[in-house]
């Protein structure tokens, strides 16, 4: 990283724009509450997409560590070559598995990166909604209780 670059970029960000306009409504906002407060992966999928019938797909790239350095900050990345409408990410054993749902409009790449919290070792699943069907990729991420660092 260029040590100077960060500050220059930061400098170009304009001061806070007062958010006076109504917040743009996200299409799935109507049922998001139920999907997000739900202990079951299947029920969350039902709430989100009206279906929990999923097909595993090799066309989804799910990047998540085998062993999380710190369960509070686990970097994840989901991308797919499919034409995706939505990408969701689930952490199975979290109190509420659904962590994020991203809407991918036309012209936007089917890719999302974020950092999630994980309570314990569990399966994580990327769900891609494409042409009304749900495709998944899963892997296990180990969360350890640290000795000194964690």
């Amino acid at each position: 990283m260029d040590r100077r670059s960060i500050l220059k970029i930061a400098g170009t960000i304009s001061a806070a724009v007062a958010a006076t306009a109504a917040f743009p409504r996200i299409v799935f906002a109507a049922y998001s509450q139920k999907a997000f407060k739900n202990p079951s992966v299947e029920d969350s999928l039902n709430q989100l997409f009206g279906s929990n019938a999923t097909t595993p797909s090799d066309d989804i790239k799910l990047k998540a560590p085998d062993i999380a350095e710190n369960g509070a900050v686990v970097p994840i990345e989901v991308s797919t070559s499919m034409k995706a409408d939505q990408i969701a990410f689930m952490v199975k054993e979290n109190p509420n598995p659904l962590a994020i749902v991203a809407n991918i409009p036309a012209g936007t790449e089917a890719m999302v990166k974020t950092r999630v919290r994980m309570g314990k070792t569990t399966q994580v699943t990327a769900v891609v909604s494409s042409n009304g069907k749900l495709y998944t990729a899963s892997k296990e991420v180990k969360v350890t209780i640290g000795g000194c660092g964690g």
Partner: protein
Amino acid sequence: MKRIIQTTLAGAIGLGVAFSALAGPVDDQAAFQKYYESRFPNTPTEDFANGVYSILPEAREQWESIEEFPPYELAIENGEKLYHSKFANGKSLADCFGPEGAVRGQYPFWDKDRGMVMTMERAVNECREANGEKPYRWKKGKIADVTAYMSFNSRGQEVKVEIPTDDSRALAAYEDGKEHFYTKRGQLNFACADCHLLTAGNLYRADTTSPAFGHATSWPVFRSKWQSMGTLHRRFAGCHNNIRANPYKAQGTEYSNLEYFVTYMSNGLEFNGPAARK
């Protein structure tokens, strides 16, 4: 990598050294660095500045992902503001450390007039006090933000701590830090060297210990465990707590001398703070 060979210092060894078995700082440093280089032959020397990520490929991937937009950037921004904000007398930290505060490479140093190790954090607070301001608290918060900004502007400066030969107290401070590093303490009976030298890279429960070579280059650090920024002395205290030894005071003699020793051991690396750690 350039290594600092201080031949003049080598000549002065033996004066004021209590044990005949003790090698001087220059020999200490060479043996210390060689130890890590032969223990981790796949790690390029300069990469030791990246802590445990220099020896753990899988953890490194996550770290690099965090560094894409590191949480310490917010600290750098806040530090920049604090650095340039005016004291009541109209001056600012910039009057002490220049327009960018790019002085990381000058610390820690032996302050002959005061007979003590001067750290960058101490210098910041002394600048504030000299201008009639209250000092920041030592371990986290504003001190970490300001030094994050200063360290960031100093990235790439070489670690070249000197132990002046014309003041035996400097060597004594170094020896004190060295003894601290190699001495077991706490109920768990660990020395810094046990985890971070003799068994560096081994697992302690679920954690791999980091090499001590490079330990002092990257501060302040945003630790995921803290979810905040902290100074090197905050980490020293955390480590001591882990081994059930009462931590010493941040910026007290013990930790300042320890910083003097540990940083000297990393001479030749580059300062690369602030950084993100687990």
